[in-house]
């Protein structure tokens, strides 16, 4: 491992489990394994850190040498992407269609207009209008493996990367051990199955009003959880709450979104995507979740 890999891996034993913690993707990451074998826990922690950092380095928009960095810097000629990036782009394209344009990985440029600092300062509408020509997946030329963006456009896998990393990491760890595992990258988590004896894992949902305390405990025996929403990033203007999730079709924030939506699904990618889509329904989040028969918890 090179020196700039970030903070070290911390292994601790808590109860029946070993916890391995590290930081990646600007978020605290942790894996838990129910085992008495410390060496195994260390190995698993290393593999998880490796995978999380691999995904981060490859898809981070902050690194000029990452795939995303090179895509965003590619000029009129576009560039060729590898199989994994191609799969993510295909996936993003299909999600764009399924969500009727709500999910759009080209919407990142809008962050230049929006500053979610809890204040009541809404962005200048002219600024948003000037950015809208750079937003919209249909403007992207994607003929696998060749990708071409219009000048000034950017793609951002931020809405997918953490959940994707969780799923890949879990699979990687499950190939090495059959002990019960839980992978949690900043609140997006997935378990390999129940704990030994069939007992579920206990997951606390962080309270929105009082961060750091639990507003509820979930019992998870299989699958993944992902949470969309962040109580700290919003704007409040004339009594209307503007969440940090923007509608790529208008450039504006979704009106009256919930504070957070936690979705349970089989994979973390599915949970994360569904949570994002649910948030984008604004006031209609609950109705969307009910109509789609999704297991979710909404905090308004």
């Amino acid at each position, binding site marked *: 491992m090179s020196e700039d890999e970030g903070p070290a891996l911390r292994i601790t034993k808590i109860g029946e489990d070993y916890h391995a913690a590290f930081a990646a993707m600007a978020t605290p990451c942790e894996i838990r394994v129910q085992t008495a074998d410390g060496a195994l826990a260390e190995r698993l922690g290393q593999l998880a850190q490796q995978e999380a950092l691999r995904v981060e380095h490859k898809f981070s928009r902050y690194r000029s040498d990452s795939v995303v960095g090179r895509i965003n810097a590619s000029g009129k000629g576009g560039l060729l992407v590898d199989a994994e990036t191609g*799969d993510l782009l*295909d*996936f993003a394209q*299909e999600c764009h269609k399924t969500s009727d344009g709500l999910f759009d990985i080209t919407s990142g440029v809008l962050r230049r207009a929006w500053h979610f600092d809890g204040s009541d300062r809404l962005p200048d509408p002219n600024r948003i209008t000037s950015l809208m020509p750079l937003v919209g997946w249909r403007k992207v030329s994607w003929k696998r493996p060749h990708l071409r963006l219009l000048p000034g456009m950017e793609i951002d896998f931020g809405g997918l990367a953490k959940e994707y990393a969780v799923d890949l990491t879990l699979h990687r760890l499950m190939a090495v051990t059959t002990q019960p595992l839980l992978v949690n990258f900043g609140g997006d988590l997935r378990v390999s199955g129940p704990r030994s004896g069939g007992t579920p894992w206990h997951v606390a949902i962080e309270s929105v009003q009082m961060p750091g305390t639990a507003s509820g405990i979930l019992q998870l025996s299989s699958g993944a959880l992902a949470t969309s929403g962040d109580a700290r990033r919003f704007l409040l203007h004339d009594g209307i709450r503007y969440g940090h999730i923007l509608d790529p079709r208008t450039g504006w924030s979704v009106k009256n979104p919930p504070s957070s939506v936690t979705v349970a699904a089989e994979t973390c990618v599915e949970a994360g995507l569904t949570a994002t889509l649910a948030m984008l329904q604004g006031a209609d989040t609950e109705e969307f979740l009910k109509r789609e028969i999704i297991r979710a918890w909404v905090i308004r």
Partner: protein
Amino acid sequence: MRRTLILLTLAVVMPFACACSEIGPRPWEKDLMARSEMQMNSYPVLGAAEDHIYFSREASSGGRGFAGGGCGCN
């Protein structure tokens, strides 16, 4: 006659010659294909034993793999 033959051949070949579009499910639509039960010949040891039994009782062999049994039981 010759022209019809050429046109017929093109009609059969063209769909396969067109490299620009792809035929079949997209990679993300192949989730079910990843199941081990969806692989062809997912239990080769069982398949080989059954082939051996049929080879020793019947005149035909092969199909999935080579004909012949590599043993003297026929």
